[in-house]
């Protein structure tokens, strides 16, 4: 089964000068993300696979598939640590 991810429903984000500021209403913490992180979080409003996120990054930026996949996987790992990501099973 291909795992799908979506952002935590209690996230609120806004763009500012190409970067993003993210609020987590559940943990009441906030942090900033870079431009590609913001693009990934925007895409994660709906459930997405890693491949779909890679395609979204490649469509938006001039970047190789390999580089985009590394960026996506690294960002998802950081999101998981920060409790801002849910997978299909809701974990």
């Amino acid at each position, binding site marked *: 089964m291909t795992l799908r991810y979506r952002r935590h429903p209690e996230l*609120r*984000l806004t763009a*500012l000068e190409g970067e993003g*500021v993210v*609020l987590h209403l559940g943990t009441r913490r906030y942090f900033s993300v870079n431009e590609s992180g913001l693009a990934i979080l925007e895409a994660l409003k709906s459930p997405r696979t890693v491949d779909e996120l890679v395609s979204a990054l490649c469509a938006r930026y001039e970047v190789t598939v390999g580089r985009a996949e590394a960026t996506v996987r690294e960002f998802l790992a950081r999101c998981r640590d920060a409790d801002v990501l849910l997978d299909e099973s809701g974990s």
Partner: protein
Amino acid sequence: MTSSIELVCADPTVRAALKAWLDEGRLDPPGPLALHVRVAHPPVDNEPGRAVFEQPGVLVRSGAPGRGVRIEWEAAPAVAELPPGETTAYVTLSAAAAARIHECLRTFLLTVLIFLLRRRGWHHIHAATAVDPRGRGWLIAGDAHAGKSTTAALLASCGWEVGTDDIAFLTGAAAHVTAVAFRQPIALRPGGHLLLRRRGTVRLPERRKVGYWPEDLGGRWISRAEPRVILFTSVAERTLVTRAEPLARREALTELIRWSAWVMLEPEFAQHHLELLASLARQAQSYRVTLGRDLFAHPARLTALVA
């Protein structure tokens, strides 16, 4: 000016105090809001399990969309319920709370008002507001010891228009965020009062402060400011010379979130509140300022630093 917020209260003493407070605040929100207040034994929480957000003396219980907000005063039994989708706050004050109505207004009922105004798109920020002689709006944000009131008093003494030294509400749309002032006297501690060398006209003994209207200082009160300059101030011990450091917009936004912390509550309003803060960070130039004693002799130095 009579407040446009509808007040329903059968207790004449509480009603008189509330009406005077609301009228003095001169807020004119863009749609009907109501405050229903009764003196009785406060009800128990019938929506347990909501997350608690603690502020000095006040507990706010808020949860998922559609669950409303409950606000409790810690000093004496008093509760406010703001049901989901309604523009009325239902407040129950115990007799003990009603007996301390002026203290209750400053802490508990102010918090109730903040949540009520959110229902009309007005979002609280812990900040002073002013308009300089060139017509630029200023917002001065920071905590209770950040020098906001002293700076507001100094600016008024230079003939500026000053809205508030502490309580403002952000409203508007992209590129045109306005800070609406809740009118109350600029409240200075004895140290600031002595340094300013002016007599205040409002005694605030319960706060151990002296109050000034902007007009007492040679300024003028103004309801609204469209901030083009934002200062995040602090006062450092023994700092003689005021310093200002420009902030990037993203840094400014994270500071604004800090001083407009209710953005974290009520999911149904959080996105609008966050967008308003981002628009404010875009429309203004922001600075982190360490206030020094030189401002008392040379208040124009503040303008020179951010020119």
